């Protein structure tokens, strides 16, 4: 009897790479096209409850710190005031405001440091960027050593809008 020798050929199966590469490139192109580089955004909370006067607690609370932002006709900043005190109108005005708020909050004899509230009263046509700078100056500062945010005042609210006459 003749025994047949079944010769098994070397069974190295080579996977078809072409379709996979096609799909992978499709995916790559999809993700490249949908990529939108968006800058990191953050936010500031604003404390504006409805009917605040009616629900105000009977406890004695300190009056809000009044920050007044005055605008030029073109919407640029004409001046910053804190509790009637002029702080200037240059880029350092908000640094001065930050320092003033820091002094108020940091005073050890201030029992209301946690309850302090800031009321921002801005001219109607003032550019919004200055309001954000003022809110930021009142909210706290970034520690240069640690890079952490040190909070000053959590409660920031707006005064009623100053509508232009007519």
């Amino acid at each position, binding site marked *: 009897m003749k025994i047949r020798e079944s010769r098994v050929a070397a069974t190295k199966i080579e996977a078809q790479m072409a379709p996979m590469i096609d799909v992978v490139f499709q995916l790559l192109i999809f993700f490249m096209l949908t990529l939108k580089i968006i800058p990191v955004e953050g936010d500031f909370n*604003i404390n504006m409850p409805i009917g605040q006067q009616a629900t105000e607690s009977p406890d004695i609370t300190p009056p809000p710190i009044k920050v007044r932002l005055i605008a030029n006709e073109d919407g640029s900043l004409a001046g910053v005031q804190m509790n009637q005190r002029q702080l200037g109108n240059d880029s350092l005005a908000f640094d001065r405001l930050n320092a003033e708020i820091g002094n108020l909050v940091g005073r050890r004899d201030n029992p209301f440091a946690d309850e302090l509230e800031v009321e921002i009263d801005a001219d109607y046509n003032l550019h919004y960027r200055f309001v954000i700078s003022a809110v930021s100056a009142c909210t706290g500062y970034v520690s240069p050593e640690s890079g952490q945010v040190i909070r000053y005042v959590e409660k920031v609210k707006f005064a009623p809008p100053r509508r232009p006459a007519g």
Partner: protein
Amino acid sequence: MRYKKHESSVIEPDMTPMIDIVFQLIAFFMMVTNFEQTQADERVKLPSDQLARPPVVSREKVLVINVGFIRDKEGEKTDPTAYVFEGDSKTPVLEYGPRLKEEKRVAEALYGPGGHKDMIIEIRADAETPTGLVQELIKLAQEAGFEKFSLRAKQLIR
């Protein structure tokens, strides 16, 4: 004379390094692609600030309102009126009240009666928007029954 026997001359390039790189690229693009920021409108040029840090815990009930101007390719304003942008439609800020009331009804339908009170109105306003208009918008939202607000800004890294 002896002849050398040539093997078949189909050169198969080694694909492995290329596939490695391509997978790395895909992984990179998948990581950096952010599908959540779809509510942000590119027409709004946000002010930037150092203290504007993203919230640690992501918020659930948020209504984003984009306020900005129509600008040309150079970024110059072509219309001095500030609009609230919603996709392709635009509404002047002072006429946005009815839309906010509609949003309140939607919020109540989704989260039950009073559900709109926990909703945070995120205002993404252009840096050049008159502050009075932002205040008017907050007032309109208050009249519609919303109570929580946040002002959005770009994080400035020094």
